[in-house]
């Protein structure tokens, strides 16, 4: 017979801090990720590192992401590291967060320049020849602000967190990228875009079942639009792009208390390019499907991996993405509780 209060439950409850955000940061070719807009307690800090391996093969005149024009018969490989810091806040009595993203890495391009508009070729490249080019360095850093509009009021106290059982939630997310990343105006490929750009999104979530580790399931839908300023020095020319419309969706489910999986979808369309006011290439229409596996190693540490590939939309582009991510989260109270539990 055991009676009395099991104060150790306090520890278990703090483990629910694992509903930390795992902001995937931004790499424009990838999605935010499953459960990216889950909320944490005010004051929770989250650091995330992720490695992206991106492979693309374009058989037509295609664009693979908002930053780059891709050449027919081009093979592109990118290895990118993204560091992200997010802090959970309370704004207007709503759960909110502010995230800073820094990315860096390298991109390698092999392309055939047949049928490539001359304006898209670097000065030293002869039309009709093959082209190999690489870029490395930092990409454009960005800042993202997220605030809940519906379904998640403030999570300032432990009590708020204990009582937190979201069902339908709606957020607003605003991202702004600062064009200070590596950019060489004479190169086809760069890590930075040399222009301001940003995104407006409305992340929506619907949670099924108990909001408790081991039970949680969610359907997440984030419609958003990327908007780009012009790049006034794209190999000496002016590059403009239409907005890029994007739908990101995830169906997530807890398999155990510390392990969840997700089916992922990312669909993008729009982004018509113009060089000096003339349409170039086609509009983008790419749909990626993939999956994510996420394992919470400790109350603070989470590891995640995902894979996706475009399976519908434009048929002249094949791409695949592998992502490995580590997320570490902490909160002052949680750290102090650990100290107290461990004693002196």
């Amino acid at each position, binding site marked *: 017979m055991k*009676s*009395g209060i099991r104060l150790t439950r306090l520890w278990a409850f703090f483990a629910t801090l694992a509903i930390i955000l795992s902001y995937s940061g931004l790499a424009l070719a990838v999605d935010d990720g499953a459960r990216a807009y889950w909320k944490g307690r005010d004051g929770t800090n989250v650091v995330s590192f992720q490695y992206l391996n991106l492979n693309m093969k374009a058989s037509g005149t295609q664009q693979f992401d908002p930053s780059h024009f891709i050449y027919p018969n081009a093979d592109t490989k990118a290895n990118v590291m993204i560091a992200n810091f997010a802090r959970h806040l309370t704004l207007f009595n709503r759960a909110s967060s502010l995230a800073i993203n820094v990315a860096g890495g390298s991109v390698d391009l092999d392309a055939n320049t047949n049928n490539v508009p001359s304006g898209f070729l670097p000065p030293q490249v002869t039309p009709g020849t093959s082209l190999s080019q690489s870029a490395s360095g930092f990409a454009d850093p960005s800042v993202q602000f997220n605030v809940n509009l519906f379904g998640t009021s403030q999570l300032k106290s432990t009590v708020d967190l204990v009582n937190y059982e979201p069902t339908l939630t709606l957020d607003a997310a605003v991202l702004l990228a600062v064009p200070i990343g590596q950019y060489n105006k004479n190169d086809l490929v760069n890590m930075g875009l040399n222009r301001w750009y940003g995104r407006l999104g409305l992340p929506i979530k619907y949670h099924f079942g108990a909001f408790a580790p081991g039970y949680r399931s969610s359907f997440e839908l984030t419609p958003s639009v990327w908007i780009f300023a012009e790049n006034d020095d794209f190999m000496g020319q002016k590059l403009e792009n239409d907005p890029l419309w994007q739908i990101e969706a995830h169906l997530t489910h807890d398999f155990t208390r510390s392990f969840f999986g997700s089916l992922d979808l990312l669909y993008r369309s729009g982004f018509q390019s113009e060089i000096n006011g003339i349409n170039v290439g086609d509009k983008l229409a790419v749909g990626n499907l993939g999956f994510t596996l996420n394992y919470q190693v400790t109350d603070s540490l989470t590891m995640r991996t995902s894979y996706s590939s475009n399976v519908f939309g434009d048929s002249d582009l094949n791409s695949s993405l592998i992502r490995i991510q580590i997320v570490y989260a902490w909160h002052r109270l949680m750290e102090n509780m650990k100290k107290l539990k461990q004693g002196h």
Partner: protein
Amino acid sequence: MEIHIITRIIAAVAIRAKEGFTMAGPNIRGGLVSLLIALAGLSITGTDAAAQPNKRPNFLLIVADDLGYSDLGSYGGEINTPVLDNLAQKGVRYTNFYVSPTCSVTRSMLLSGTDNHVAGLGNMGELNAPNQVGKPGYEGVLNKRVATVAELLRDNGYHTYMAGKWHLGLKPDQIPHARGFERDFSLLVGGGSHFDDQWNVEWQIPKAPYTEDGRPLEKLPKGFYSTKHYTDKTIQFIEEGRQDGKPFFAYMAFTAPHGPLHLPDDWLRRYKNRYDEGWDGIRQQRLARMQELGIVDQGANAADRLYFLPRSTALTPAVRVMQGRKMELYAGMVEYMDDQIGRVFDYLKKIGEYDNTVVIFISDNGAEGNDLRAMVAGQVGSMGFLHAMNNFAEDGHNSLGRKGTYAEYGPAWAQVSMAPFRIYKGWVSEGGIRSPLIVSGPGVQGAGKLNKEAILHVMDIVPTVLELAGIQHPSTYKGREIAPVQGKSWVGMLAGRTQSPRTSDDWLGWELFNNRAIRQGDWKISLLYRPFGTYDWQLFNLAEDPGEQYDLSDKFPEKKKKLVALWDEYVQMNGVIIGERSPFERARKALPDAVPEFDSYPPFRGLEALPYKKLIELMNQ
């Protein structure tokens, strides 16, 4: 036809004899009626009832499982129980109604009308001590020394139905269908999942066995939820049986709010944050309401918070919320049960039988303060632990109440449920054996009245029902001698002719797990294992001290001596065997240490945190 007429005459005489001799004691009544029966050379048969179906009342016996004394609104509780509160307004509430400290023991007396040590549940079958095994009265099932009220009613023209928990035997000759219930949907064991996953609490019988109409169920219907299904079945049985016009006896043995605390999804948050303030505040509010309602006398001593329970204001708000969640679930189960009882009442009204139905509502024992999950699964590596791993390991805060979880609300909330009494289920203190009782229907006078005078016992229900049905409890049943009823009929009391079926000389006795008690009038002696008792007799005056806080042994030694002598009589009368072992023999070690702070100690500290601003204000005064 002639036989029927004679039988009716005997029944009528028997009723008049009982009414006339209510206070004269059972021997006179029984003797007279037996004589009449013997003269007639007949036994009462069921054909009589069929001949005049509307002359006798229906019975709806509703038993809640582990419901606390003060949980219902009509007993001072904050839980929303409008149906039972209305029943209380239509009928009568009683404040001194007693049951046994645990469920199967109570049920044996409820159905037999005699002491549990006679009826086969001298101890819970699962917990018989070695020296009790195989002894008469310790069969662990409802034995054949008794006839059930269902058997007697069925044989005398009643339809007999049961839906819910049996816990009085598993074998074919022990199950409800074999013990008098024509129709049944029964959980045969003590408790388990309320859902269709069907796990049992005990690892020895990992899957809870159910029967329907006497046949074992392979599996529960999909979507099963205990309280709802038992209600559906009760209504179904009554509906399917009513064509022949016979009266019915329906036994609704709910398994709510027994742990695990389970609720349908749409009821999970019905009491969201209702109990965040903690147990102390809620208990104080209940006590105040109980005084307003007259359930508890002004100035009567309520039991102190048990020594190992912290005052709730010493807990962080988050912990209070987490602890409160369990009480939310418990309250939800109670209200859900109330709601379902309302469905049965509505149905009875619809078919025109409500006004001809005697409704009796009780709980089977005190509220559950023990941690049954820990008792089953507390030892890592044990079979119980493995069983829990397979079936009910989940206990996340937000998942509690759902399938696969096992929440109980613990001793602090159990004390709230049992306010103003001491301890909880399992113990023979008032917190283990006092139950709410509401009786309503034909033959019940004094709508809305609160009866505080009568000292009543669950054994009384059989003679009461039989008398209202015009049936005499026989001395033999199917060729075997059966134990006489020890309970006392309430018919005179219900009719308003007396305040109580007991005189000041009458007494009641209890023994379970070697804890013992005797109550006579306002006085009670009890002997409890440590740490709740001294394992010696203690004397309490329940009129002044319902919380059993002050041992008056030294002040009234003669009174104590007299009650101890009654205990000896109780042992002799019922064949009580003190067990070599008891589940509570290690209670002192198993319970947590005392909390360091009590309400009045250390004296300087207040009960609430003092914000610095307020402190400065105080310092400047």
